[in-house]
């Protein structure tokens, strides 16, 4: 029980030292930063990633900077508590080109896939304590893996990015029926622009081709996560590895933001909607078997430093069980209030209500309190 606090304190101390040492002016040099995420929850949610009680959330130590004129690199070590143990892992370790011609970019190493709207973003930048059900069910919350990426940005007046990624896939489907060297590929397109000074938007479509079929066990067929089968949703899923997977997943995303005359420091509205559909669940699946998830989130910054938001999530899955499937349906609604006095701190309180329609017996209601503290430099956030 004491370990999370101790580790958090050590992380904080190390990060302060690192931040102090590295925050010196170095516009072209390396920078380091750390994020501490502490959460207190009244209970764990079905498919949730936060345990009951005071826990270390997704905390990390990041270094980033250039490697010569042509490359840049980033390394991120992450810590979080999971079932009363603190787990550490290398979350990101990649190099990326800076000087390829014609808007091309190549990245290699371990990194978060650019599938969907949120996956590439660091969880500490999220507007809610838990990621949407879509991510928790289909992508293990935040899917990063070992692979390569090729992106192209078009020289157009609006934003257009096409991308292809190839991954090992071991961190998406931990235990596969058959091992393959190239387990997963993601193809994605993203468009975006401004409607006028106050409104901006982004839309994207991604396709995940997953060649790692989740191993089906004799008893209570497991779908990569844990606690599948009749008592699915027992406890919560691993931080990595999808709870429900299939051969093909489509994700569509739309994000829209409004700020009066583009001045978001005083007021802003952010709306995001995503929908994902998974097909080809396993060798026993028939045409109609699919997983579907979607969510709609709305956040309003109503005063400098203050934000309020709500999100509704829906998940409908086919839970593998030997050679057949059981139906699983879960609904979730969350409201949150956040106080962000500076760039470095966030204090958030969130209430979440889950409704089990089938197969998720551990669904419940939770009150969560989250505190995020950033030390030193940290990578800029995306739209």
């Amino acid at each position, binding site marked *: 029980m004491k370990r999370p606090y101790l580790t958090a304190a050590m992380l904080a101390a190390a990060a302060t030292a690192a931040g102090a040492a590295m*925050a*010196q002016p170095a516009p072209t040099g390396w920078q380091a930063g750390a994020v501490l995420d502490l959460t207190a929850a009244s209970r764990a949610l079905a498919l949730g990633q936060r345990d009951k009680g005071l826990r270390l959330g997704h905390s990390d130590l990041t270094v980033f900077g*250039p490697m010569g004129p042509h490359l840049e690199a980033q390394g991120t070590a992450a810590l979080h508590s999971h079932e009363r143990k603190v787990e550490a892992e290398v979350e990101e370790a990649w190099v*990326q080109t800076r000087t390829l011609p014609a808007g091309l970019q190549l990245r290699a190493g371990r990194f978060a896939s650019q599938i969907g709207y949120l996956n590439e973003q660091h969880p500490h930048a999220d507007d809610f304590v838990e990621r949407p059900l879509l991510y928790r069910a289909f992508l293990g919350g935040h899917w990063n893996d070992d692979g390569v990426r090729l992106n192209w940005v078009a020289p157009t007046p609006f934003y257009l990015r096409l991308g292809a990624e190839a991954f090992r896939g071991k961190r998406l489907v931990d235990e596969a029926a058959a091992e393959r060297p190239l387990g997963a590929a993601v193809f994605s397109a993203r468009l975006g622009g401004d409607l006028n000074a106050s409104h901006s938007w982004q839309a994207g479509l991604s396709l995940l081709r997953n060649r790692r079929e989740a191993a089906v066990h004799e008893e209570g067929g497991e779908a990569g996560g844990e606690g599948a089968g009749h008592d699915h949703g027992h406890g919560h899923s691993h931080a990595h590895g999808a709870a429900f997977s299939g051969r093909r997943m489509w994700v569509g995303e739309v994000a829209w933001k409004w700020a009066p005359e583009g001045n*978001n420091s005083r007021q802003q509205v952010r709306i995001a909607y995503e929908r994902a559909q998974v097909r080809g669940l396993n060798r026993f699946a028939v045409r109609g078997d699919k997983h579907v998830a979607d969510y709609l989130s709305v956040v309003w910054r109503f005063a400098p430093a203050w934000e309020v938001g709500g999100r509704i999530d829906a998940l409908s899955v086919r839970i593998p069980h030997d050679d057949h499937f059981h139906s699983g349906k879960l609904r979730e609604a969350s409201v949150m209030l956040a106080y962000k006095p*500076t760039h470095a701190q966030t204090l958030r309180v969130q209430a979440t209500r889950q409704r089990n329609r089938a197969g998720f017996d551990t669904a419940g209601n939770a009150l969560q309190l989250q505190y995020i503290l950033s030390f030193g430099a940290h990578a800029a956030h995306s739209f």
Partner: protein
Amino acid sequence: MQPIRSRPPWRAALLAGALALAAGGAQALSVFTCEPEWAALVRELAPHAQVHSATHARQDPHHIEARPSLIAALRRADLAVCTGASLEAGWLPMLQQRSGNAKVQNGAPGMLYAADHVSLIDPKPPGTPFDGDVHTEGNPHVHLDPRRILDVARALGEQLQVVDAPRRDLYRQRLAAFEVGWRERIAQWERRAAPLRGSRVAAQHTTYAYLFRWLGIEQVADLEPKPGMPPSPGHLQRVLELTRANPPRAVVVSSYQDANPAQWLAQQLGRVPVLQMPATVTEEPPAASLPALFDHLIERLLAAR
């Protein structure tokens, strides 16, 4: 013409399109600037350039999102001009990374940071996360000192000659003319603003620190409890107690800031005017160019009585 005509028509069209693209690319120099003051400076030295400013005077340059439209604009840029000194740390690195444009990466000739070419005031030791948004390099709002504008203009002139070599002579001439005209203006502004020397103001944030220092104005209080933090009632009360005995000439806020805290303070002090001024070049008059901005700021400060 014969060989082209003998090919299928779509090939000719493609070739024509490619030629038009290449020609278009060679003609217009595309410049991306993080803030409007640098867009205005680019227009002084390169009037033919296509200039896109990522932000405008009604936005807080500390709080900008790496919007898709900005990535697209940076993708097409031949030159990017930003302030640096961590002012854009929350968004520019993301734009550079996502743009896939080799010309505007740090260290490339097409990426110019103004703060690298001037001396910065008030460097701070690195603080803890509880100290607010501290810029260790120093105050980044360098564009409000016209003498530093001159330093940046020289660096920009040189960089324009590097990234657009065919127009080297034009940039040299424009820079020389700008320098002469700008020095005259500085002398005029200093004469005009002489009565301001020694006066005291309260202000929200350190946006105008360079302007105040240049004109000999003392900022006796900051409405922000910590850099980047919005004014809190407790802190405003402290500022009031600090300034009540000897009220400042004015309470100064930027046009992108909420004027309410300043108005409260001014009311409590009694007969102290609130000056909500643009912090940079605006799209509409009266501050639609760099000279007009300094004219306007000095007139506003002189008028506050």
